[in-house]
């Protein structure tokens, strides 16, 4: 384990930034945080997490896929892809690190999504252990240890220092590149922090939430549950939950005619939108109940069925904080699983 004095933090960012772009959580005017590029003078946010998840950095909300030039009846396809450059995502929480695994299984399964893969391969993830989880946190439900985040490098921030531990080859190379700024350290302070945080995690209001009622193979059992009617009745059908979710990955592909050509781009889409499944001949999910059910069934049943039991939720709590009507996956899980 290596140790970086917090006094050297800016030197560290500057040193890394010489060769790679660093993205880290920074505060916004309204008090929330977002991932932004580090530049001289950028302050690292103390916020527990960002409103938008770091999935943006691999799977941006909008991205151009290709361009077309048309002339008469002829079409030319222009491949505008560029290999990503190396970059560092700094301060990713354990839940969000886990979300990358969820996304990987979609985008890196055959046929591999080259846009996503290129960024993923060039990213170094420096994950940060939590010390002050919020009441909306429930990552433990999904077996995530917030005190021991995965990622290429795990980091622990104490009052005076940042402790760093490499988990992968990429991570080791990264630590090596900043060796001059860090020193060897024992794990005492980190261990103490972990114990303390673990105690807090146990006391969180959602600590006893379980996934027992869910998982692959439960489609038939849960599909006709009257809960869907009841819980979806005031859903607004907006896309807030899906857009702040670190694991939601549905997208749309659209064309934009610039007047000089056509750009085909993709953008996030939401299964909560009424247009999501609309075809020329009709729509197979006509009511908000069906769309609402799709979202939660996908996260808690369909996805685990296809991915050896891995749930497509990481307990980050963003949807709990942001849903305009405060309806969320925890309420659904508790209602179906039996409120304790």
């Amino acid at each position: 384990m290596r140790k970086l004095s917090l006094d050297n933090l800016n030197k560290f960012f500057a040193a890394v930034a010489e060769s790679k772009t660093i993205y880290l959580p920074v505060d916004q005017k309204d008090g929330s945080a977002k991932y932004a590029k580090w530049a001289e003078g950028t302050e690292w946010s103390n916020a527990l997490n960002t409103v938008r998840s770091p999935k943006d950095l691999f799977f941006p909300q909008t991205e151009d896929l290709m361009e077309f030039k048309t002339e008469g009846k002829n079409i030319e396809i222009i491949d505008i892809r560029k290999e990503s450059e190396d970059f560092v995502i700094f301060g990713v929480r354990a839940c969000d690190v886990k979300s990358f695994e969820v996304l990987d299984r979609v985008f890196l399964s055959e046929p591999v999504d080259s846009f996503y893969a290129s960024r993923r391969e060039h990213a170094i993830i420096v994950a940060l252990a939590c010390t002050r989880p919020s009441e909306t946190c429930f990552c433990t439900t999904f077996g995530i240890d917030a005190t021991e985040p995965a990622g290429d490098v795990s980091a622990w921030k104490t009052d005076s220092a940042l402790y760093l531990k490499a988990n992968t080859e990429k991570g080791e190379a990264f630590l090596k590149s900043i060796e001059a700024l860090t020193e060897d350290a024992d794990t005492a302070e980190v261990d103490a922090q972990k114990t303390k945080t673990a105690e807090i995690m146990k006391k969180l209001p959602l600590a006893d939430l379980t996934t027992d009622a869910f998982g692959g193979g439960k489609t038939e059992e849960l599909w006709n549950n009257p809960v869907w009617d009841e819980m979806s009745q005031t859903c607004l059908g907006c896309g807030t939950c899906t857009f702040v979710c670190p694991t939601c990955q549905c997208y749309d592909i659209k064309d934009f005619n610039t007047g000089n050509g056509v750009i085909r781009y993709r953008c996030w889409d939401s299964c909560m939108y009424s247009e999501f499944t609309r075809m020329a001949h009709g729509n197979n999910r006509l009511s908000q109940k069906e769309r609402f059910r799709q979202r939660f069934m996908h996260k808690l049943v369909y996805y685990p069925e296809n991915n050896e039991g891995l749930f497509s939720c990481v307990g980050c709590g963003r949807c709990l904080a942001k849903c305009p009507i405060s309806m969320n996956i925890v309420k659904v899980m508790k209602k179906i699983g039996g409120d304790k």
Partner: protein
Amino acid sequence: MQMKEYKPLIVAFCCNWCSYAGADLAGNNRLNYPADVKIIRVPCSCRVNPMFILRAFQRGADGVILCGCHPGDCHYTSGNYYTRRRMAMLFSMLDYLGIERERTRVEWVSAAEGAKFAATMNDFVEKVTALGENKRLEDLRCKR
């Protein structure tokens, strides 16, 4: 490198009954006004939806002017009265968002006012030229 002289692109929505005829008259009378004014004929100034104005800017317009019959003279009795309120509100909103107010204008031009049409366009183009390119309400994709 020689600097190319900046010429703004102006979109003019002209009502079919008055302003479009006014533009025609300006042409017939050989009155000069810049060729950078692109006229879009609409059945009534009231046909112009706020989205038209924004889309004109998106597609590269540097200024948008809306011309209709004089209040009281609308072919459809009251269309331009509604336009007047709508555009007043819309342009005030654009101004509120920090978009230069000289880029938008409403002008009443009758079929007999060829000279006014030409003068209005000359004046508008001059004002927009002074402002330079539209940067605040542009869609970069359309400039590739």
